């Protein structure tokens, strides 16, 4: 018990006067800034045609025209500026041209590059003028390579566009008499920031322009590492005190919420504005610093859905840091999401990542581990439906009077089939040029190659979705059909076909007498087998067509709902019927790694133990153990410490990733009935946090039906 009582308590309260930022927050939550938006977007098609622009040049022209169309918007109470005023992004090809260009090719999601992370630290520390100098130098070297020249000229056009936008903001600030804001924008992002304030302003602008180029799921990476030198400099030189630094960081965090309604995602809030805190330094030391703590305090203050906080830990992370992070969990924001360095880094290395890069991992939009500036990875090309693979195997295997082992082998084959199909679909992947995003990556300007041509890492990721239900279905067959022999194969299949109508007694046995993932070792070990099969199927593919491999993961993304209810607008993808775990058609699967909603489970310890058996060195795409805690856990201070200990236990057991949601069922039910009373209620959905009332009903329903622990 010594460790409980004695760890130092880190302050969770910010120390600045919050009145200025309170009113900024309120403006944003009331969407007042939307009034400044123009309804029109620049029309690019005519000029692109007239000038006969290539695709890269069209992409850079888009960035330029979007920057030019921005009307500087500066409020009197702002110290970090930029509010988007052009809401929509115009096309650079007509629909007919677009169809022709993409015919026979696979586009990932909306088509444009998304879900990667720039090397923000590198761009900040050099400034855009230096990036431009590099581009010009490469241009001189590659004078006889037209494609390189086309790319570099495009990249330079975007750099000039951003510099021009910054200059217009600076002018507007001067006009308004806001000289300090003007002075900052006269310096950054052209030149390296000289202090924390300049760094944040530079980042705000550089980051916002990525969205304006039509990209989405734009992560921010390890801010407490790459911004720390600026803050440390200011603190050491007494240029800034903690309170003022907190205030600046808070304003930056708030600014990330301004335009998020413009960001495309499956649901509002699914926008990938992630930050990663903590974790190792290049030297293998603990990278936690004052900015790590500050970012958590500031996120507690801002209490908004962006940025989405991730925290890298190990089993040795201080309980004091975990307790501070637990304050965020208690607030119900659904973050931080935790990653275990002791598991993730070796797994990345085992999967071909350079140890010199692996230490620096962050997450993409949700949980997928990526290396900032070095990856053009498509970490979510799709999901294997684990329940479908199990269901096909169970039905066919039982009919063929196979052994249980035979059914497991069939399941593995079906998993392999699905993996092959997903990868095959992506063999014709078309990644559009992204000249501005390339400016922010490592090596593109240096080699004259757009990031869409590939970076150091070019892997694909595949989720293994609804895995617990699949393991439970197989475990039920193993126990009731093969071991106890109390259920006849044909009765089981008939009952599933009837959706258990009139077969309630059998359904009851499947639900209550069969082992369940997260509760019983028999089911847990089948889950291990399923992910081994997924890993083997992925490992069998030596090249994804882009010089990369396939990374299997344990997440589900939105597939947990699509597998249940069908993919919206896609009638080819029929939802799966009743399954051998006793689940009826239409009943939910769990999101990510969690016991299936129909299973009775004892709680978080068994759940963590179950998922600790997976071989994460082979499943390195990420995907968190997902648990909902009752807010009653936090009714007294002891509960805070116990939650922090639970997180420590997660890491010590060798699990990979964890997200905790704190919910009050009564509040959720009330919010569904009276959304107007709960406009600010935040919940974790599958790998991101959003406002409960902005979610579609089926996503709300799923959260209400999840297992609730600690009540």
């Amino acid at each position: 018990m010594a460790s409980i009582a004695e760890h130092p308590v880190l302050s969770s309260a910010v120390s600045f006067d919050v009145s200025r930022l309170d009113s900024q927050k309120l403006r944003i939550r009331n969407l007042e800034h939307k009034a400044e938006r123009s309804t029109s977007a620049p029309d690019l098609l005519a000029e692109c045609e007239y000038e006969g622009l290539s695709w890269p040049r069209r992409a850079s022209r888009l960035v330029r025209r979007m920057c030019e169309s921005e009307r500087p918007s500066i409020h009197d109470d702002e110290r970090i500026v930029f509010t988007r005023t052009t809401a929509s992004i115009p096309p650079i090809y007509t629909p007919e041209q677009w169809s022709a260009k993409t015919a026979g090719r696979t586009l990932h999601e909306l088509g444009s590059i998304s879900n990667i992370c720039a090397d923000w630290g590198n761009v900040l520390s050099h400034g855009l003028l230096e990036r431009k100098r590099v581009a010009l130098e490469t241009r001189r070297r590659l004078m006889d390579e037209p494609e390189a020249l086309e790319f570099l000229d495009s990249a330079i056009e975007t750099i000039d566009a951003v510099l021009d936008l910054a200059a217009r903001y600076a002018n507007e600030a001067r006009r308004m008499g806001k000289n300090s804001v003007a002075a900052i924008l006269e310096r950054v992002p052209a030149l390296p920031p000289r202090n924390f304030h300049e760094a944040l302003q530079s980042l705000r602008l550089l980051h916002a322009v990525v969205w304006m180029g039509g990209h989405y799921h734009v992560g921010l990476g390890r801010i407490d590492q790459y911004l720390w030198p600026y803050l440390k400099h200011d603190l050491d030189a007494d240029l800034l005190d903690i309170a003022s630094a907190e205030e600046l960081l808070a304003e930056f965090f708030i600014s990330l919420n301004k335009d998020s309604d413009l960001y495309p995602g499956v649901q509002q809030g699914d926008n990938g504005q992630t930050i990663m805190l903590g974790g190792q330094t290049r030297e293998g030391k603990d990278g936690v610093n004052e900015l790590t703590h500050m970012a958590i305090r500031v996120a507690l203050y801002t209490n908004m859905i962006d940025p989405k906080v991730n925290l890298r830990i190990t089993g040795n992370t201080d309980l004091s840091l975990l307790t501070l992070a637990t304050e965020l969990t208690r607030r119900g924001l659904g973050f931080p999401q935790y990653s275990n360095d002791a598991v993730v880094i070796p797994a990345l290395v085992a999967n071909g990542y350079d140890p010199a890069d692996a230490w620096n991992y962050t997450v993409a939009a949700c949980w997928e581990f990526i290396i900032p500036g070095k990856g053009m990875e498509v970490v979510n090309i799709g999901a294997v439906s684990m329940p479908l693979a199990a269901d096909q195997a169970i039905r066919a295997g039982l009919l063929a009077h196979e052994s249980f082992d035979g059914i497991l082998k069939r399941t593995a084959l079906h998993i392999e089939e699905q993996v092959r199909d997903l990868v095959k679909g992506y063999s014709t992947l078309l990644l559009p040029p992204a000249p501005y995003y390339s400016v922010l990556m490592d090596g593109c300007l240096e080699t004259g190659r757009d990031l869409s041509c590939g970076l150091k890492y070019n892997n694909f990721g595949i989720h293994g979705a609804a895995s617990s239900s699949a393991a439970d279905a197989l475990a039920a067959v193993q126990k009731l059909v093969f071991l106890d022999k109390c259920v006849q194969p044909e009765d089981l299949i008939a009952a599933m076909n009837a959706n258990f109508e009139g077969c309630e007694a059998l359904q009851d046995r499947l639900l209550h007498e069969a082992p369940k993932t997260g509760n019983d070792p028999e089911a847990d070990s089948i889950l291990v087998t399923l992910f081994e099969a997924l890993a083997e199927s992925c490992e069998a593919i030596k090249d994804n067509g882009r010089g990369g491999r396939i990374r299997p993961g344990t997440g589900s993304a939105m597939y947990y709902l699509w597998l249940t209810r069908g993919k919206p607008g896609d009638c080819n993808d029929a939802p799966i019927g009743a399954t051998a775990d006793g689940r009826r058609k239409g009943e939910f699967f769990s999101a990510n790694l969690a016991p299936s909603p129909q299973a009775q489970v004892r709680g978080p310890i068994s759940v963590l133990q179950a998922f600790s058996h997976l071989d994460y060195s082979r499943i390195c795409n990420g995907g968190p153990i997902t648990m909902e805690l009752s807010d009653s856990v936090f009714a007294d201070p002891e509960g805070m410490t116990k939650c922090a200990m639970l997180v420590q236990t997660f890491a010590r057991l060798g699990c990979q990733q964890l997200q905790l949601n704190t919910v009050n069922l009564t509040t959720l039910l009330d919010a569904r009935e009276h959304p107007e009373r709960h406009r600010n209620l935040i919940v974790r959905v599958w790998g991101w946090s959003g406002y409960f009332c902005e979610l579609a009903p089926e996503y709300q329903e799923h959260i209400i039906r999840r297992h609730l622990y600690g009540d």
Partner: protein
Amino acid sequence: MQSGMIFDIREFTVHDGPGIRTTVFLKGCPLRCSWCHNPEGMSSLRETIENPAGKRVVGRLYTVEELSSILNRQASILSANGGGVTFSGGEPLMQARFLNAVIDHLNDLHVLLDTSGYASENDFRRVVEKSDLVYFDLKLIDHAAHLHHTGVDNERILSNLQLLAKINVPFVIRVPLIPGVTDTDENLEAIARTAKGLNGLIRVDLLPYNRAAGGKYSALGKKFCPTYDETLVQHVNVGVFEAAGVGARIVGDISK
């Protein structure tokens, strides 16, 4: 091997003792406290809960082997986090023989017994001697009131409390604050007088009333019949204990 009737095993029960704990709820209770918020713990038999979410059977027989192996699988985690296992109910001492055997099978786990104290002296002593910590529920000191609100006389309870003070096991007295019943100054003063000077007493925990208590009854096909006025304002007087020199605290956030 003998079996016990369990109605729930819940992990991470943060209000059921020190550290990270798993609580085993044994089914069956000799008391019928009208405020009971675990009505599925009253009957020793299997029951069906039926609510809009569906039907669920509560109550399952576990052999000593089964239950102890579930607990032993997580023993190292519970111990590393300053916790252990809590036996609650119902009244766990109604299955004292089974409980004894389970505890004997545990691998060095911290054991907390959460009891109403209503058990034979022999059962009480045998289990308490194997426990590391006891949560002793004390509701009412007045005999007639106790009989009225809980359905049983409190004589055994009070004598077991004295016995507990003689056995060398630390304990906490827990008082559920029922509006107008147990939370009166008169009753709290009587509890303070009873508690004062008891050997091994760590403190008194006051548990604020949970209005949601009645929710589960209809699902069990039972009727919630409180012997008190639920709408009365909660009276929480820790001062009574301070005056008597007995350490006391309120558990949980009363503002909720």
